[in-house]
């Protein structure tokens, strides 16, 4: 039984890492701030979700259900904060871009 769970953890955590890698590649390759934010937030949220999901059975085995619930709580909290923060950064980036255009591309 534990073997199946271990395999499940390995697979799901690997998938999660894959998403993280995609997010990072997005960060490096994409041209402007807004696109990068978009890629990064989405990929990391899902990546973390998968990692947490993968580790749930291990956590239950080691520290019991409460610890597992705490991990899920962490994931939820991250959902909220990374979503809000990426929107705020988008606002700042947007306003900076606007100011740059209005100044006719004057030297930053």
């Amino acid at each position, binding site marked *: 039984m534990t073997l199946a769970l271990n395999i499940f953890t390995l697979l799901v955590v690997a998938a999660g890492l894959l998403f993280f890698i995609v997010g990072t590649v997005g960060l490096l390759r994409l041209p402007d701030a807004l696109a990068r934010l978009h890629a990064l937030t989405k990929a990391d949220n899902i990546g973390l979700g998968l990692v947490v999901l993968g580790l749930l059975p291990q956590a239950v085995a080691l520290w019991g259900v409460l610890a597992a619930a705490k991990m899920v709580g962490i994931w939820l909290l991250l959902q*909220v904060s990374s979503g*809000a923060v990426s929107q*705020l950064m988008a606002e700042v980036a947007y306003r900076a871009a606007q100011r740059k255009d209005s100044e006719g591309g004057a030297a930053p």
Partner: protein
Amino acid sequence: MSLLLDAPLALVAIAVAIRAVAGGDAFARVAAFMAYGLVLGFIWVRLAAPDVALTEIAVGGGITGLVLLQAAGDARFSRERGVGLLYHVCAAILALGVFAALAAVVLLLPEPAPSLAPQVATNLPATDLGNPVTGVLIVFRALDTLLETVVLLVALIGVWSLSPDPLWRGRPAPLWPAPPSGALDFLARVVVPVGVLVGIYLFWAGADVPGGAFQGGAVLAAMALLAIMAGLMPAPALGGRRLRLALLAGPFAFLGVGIAGWFVADAFLDYPDGITKPLIIAVEVAITASIAVALALLVLGPPAGRKA
């Protein structure tokens, strides 16, 4: 096997540290420093010191990073004359010398280091506390923690003394320049209650499991700052009596208990045997409150001399 995990952590830490020191855009350097704080947090977990990991992330990386972020824009005003390549080389050589010396010392330090763990273990039951670190902080080396709270208070007085408002009645400058947007408001409404709960839990659990007054106070301060930034809570008028009482509560409650120790117990800062735990908890409540207020006010900065 453990090298597999430690080596990458160490390399990331060194890379981030070099980025923070390397120069270039001030904002990028502070961001690198905040990452440095987080990485150090992981390293402290690897060194089996969860209390310190919490403090490092909450205070070392978090609030210190936040304060440094505020200064990122003003760094250019204190820029001095650059130094030549020769100086860089000398500095590098000396830094390598420091590294070599410290590395040699770390390697030469006795492997089973002489430690006070056994003494703490034998004396911990007398303090009715489960968490040894809190035991050391609040009981065995209580003077350091008392001084710690006084240091925070004096640093705050130092920050306040920079303001033109002689009686510090005014409010500090706003943290977030733009009017609070919807996202910030939503974030605050969701995160602040959870954060306050976590902060209080951290402080409360500190007696028996990793946590404590400093970590709890830091989280509470962060939540207060978030609420102020989101406009849910007005920036406090620094002349307010309640605010100042909260500031003084920590150090002077601790002092009060300490002085009572002469009469009730047998030395300064000694806790009477019967009621050690509740007394310690009471003192920790006062300390956590004043740490939270002090940390928040240190980030907010001096009064801007306006009553608004």
